[in-house]
């Protein structure tokens, strides 16, 4: 028997680490997570692996303030539906931004982060989160502007 979470995460690693989904060659639709059957074409569909570019914009979001144990340490955090440039949407956290500054339509790119742990000492899940594209990682533009205006 696998340690809790290990097998379930390991078999999805390509999708969770690299945003690998698939694309139906028949109807040209992109799918993430990868679908076993194209719902548009079914048996006429031809699904091939596709590596998403990891760029998109925020379709909708929430600031989570009550969460189960696995996520409690991250509260408050932003969870969003990100619309990837290929046209499909996924659900992921938004990081490297003040929650109050997140807006629908904001451009974001994928980054690689720790998602959660399966309990104390359990397997650690890594995978995609998203961050605003126009900022250097860890660099808060807004606060910078504020401090520079003070020095003036």
């Amino acid at each position, binding site marked *: 028997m696998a340690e809790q979470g290990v097998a379930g995460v390991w078999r999805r690693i390509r999708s969770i680490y690299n945003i690998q989904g698939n694309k139906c060659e028949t109807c040209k639709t992109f799918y993430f997570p990868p679908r076993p059957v194209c719902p548009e074409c079914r048996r006429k569909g031809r699904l091939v692996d596709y590596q998403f570019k990891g760029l998109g914009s925020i379709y*909708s979001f*929430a*600031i*989570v303030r*009550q969460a189960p144990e696995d996520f409690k340490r991250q509260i408050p955090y932003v969870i*969003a539906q990100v619309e990837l440039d290929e046209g499909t949407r996924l*659900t992921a956290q938004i990081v490297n931004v003040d929650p109050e500054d997140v807006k629908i339509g904001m451009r974001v790119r994928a980054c690689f982060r720790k*998602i959660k742990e399966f309990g104390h000492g359990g397997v650690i899940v890594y995978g995609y989160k998203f961050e605003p594209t126009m900022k250097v990682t860890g660099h808060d533009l807004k606060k910078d502007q504020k401090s520079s205006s003070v020095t003036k």
Partner: protein
Amino acid sequence: MSNRVAIIGVGMNKFGELWDQNLRDITLEAGMYAIFDSGVRGADIDGIVIGNMSAGRFTGQEHLGAQAADMGGLGDMPAYSVEAACASGGAAVRHAYMAIKSGEHKVMLVLGTEKMSDVNQTEAMNTISVAADWEWEGMFGATFPALYAFMARRHMMEYGTTEEQLAKPTVKNHANAAHNPWAQFQRPVPIGVVMNSGLLADPLRVLHSAPITDGAAGLVMCSEDLAKKYTDTPVYIEASEQNSDTLALHDRPSITRMDAVIKSTRSALQEAMLEITDIDVFELHDSFSIGEIILTEDVGIAKKGEGGKALDEGITEIGGKFPVNTSGGLKARGHPVGATGVAQIVELALQLRGDAEKRQVDGAEKALAVNIGGTGATSIVHILGR
């Protein structure tokens, strides 16, 4: 129309956080009340259907069909357990409807049950989350309220729905529940309290959300030709429809409507040969207040985007043109997930029989219930008439 399916008895326990009762106690209580109300004897019943979402995780017990037959002293009759997340109750009603309609069963006991308060907050939150797509939403930190917050935020952006409107289903439903002796919260709540309640997942607050509830509800259903033998006030199921949508919310073209609800409502009205304006009273799945706003639009009470305006105008209040959630809804009657779909039918049957006391909609003849699973991946619609 001959060979209709009738509801001849209804019952439920008093919903709440019931530390002194276990899963068997509440299920038995609801079933017994339904049987007493119907006038059937145990020996007349030839099958049980029980709706439940997740007793295995909430209480550690599965195999609820056999448990219900055993605890009710109903012997060796077939007992079926059905699951469709928060629509499990509606699914149980529909399964009994199909079984009776087909002629396979004559008189059935329908139950919905959920005992939620025996686990801690983390386990309760995670168990509810599996109604959506656990691997691709829940595991990335999307709590169930967060998914409904996605809908609320889009609805606010696309249609200008306000925070005040978001609070109004709660105020209305609590006012209704004040007259429902079976409800979890039998007291009104002022709009200011709702609007200042703690944030769960912005923009959704605690008082926009249905509570954790222990509860069970029951119905006795039979074919039309038998119904008159037991009661002078049978209520008939005039339509039963069900549709599915993607499990994950992010896979839908729009998150400000529920396509499964639109389809199942449309086909139910067609089946019953009715227009939406013929319906006198509604139970709409308000697990979150934004859910009620979206559903009023999807069933056709309000135009798209005007669910909030419908609340401003009071048309969904008792006394309004289209009363919604006279029972108090999921918000105030309580939301034991597997029981909710059955409890909705209990309320509508009482309304059609004229037994809804202070919350009675005068002269109600037709009623409609929408029971949702997950974030709209299952929609089950029933139309009742007398």
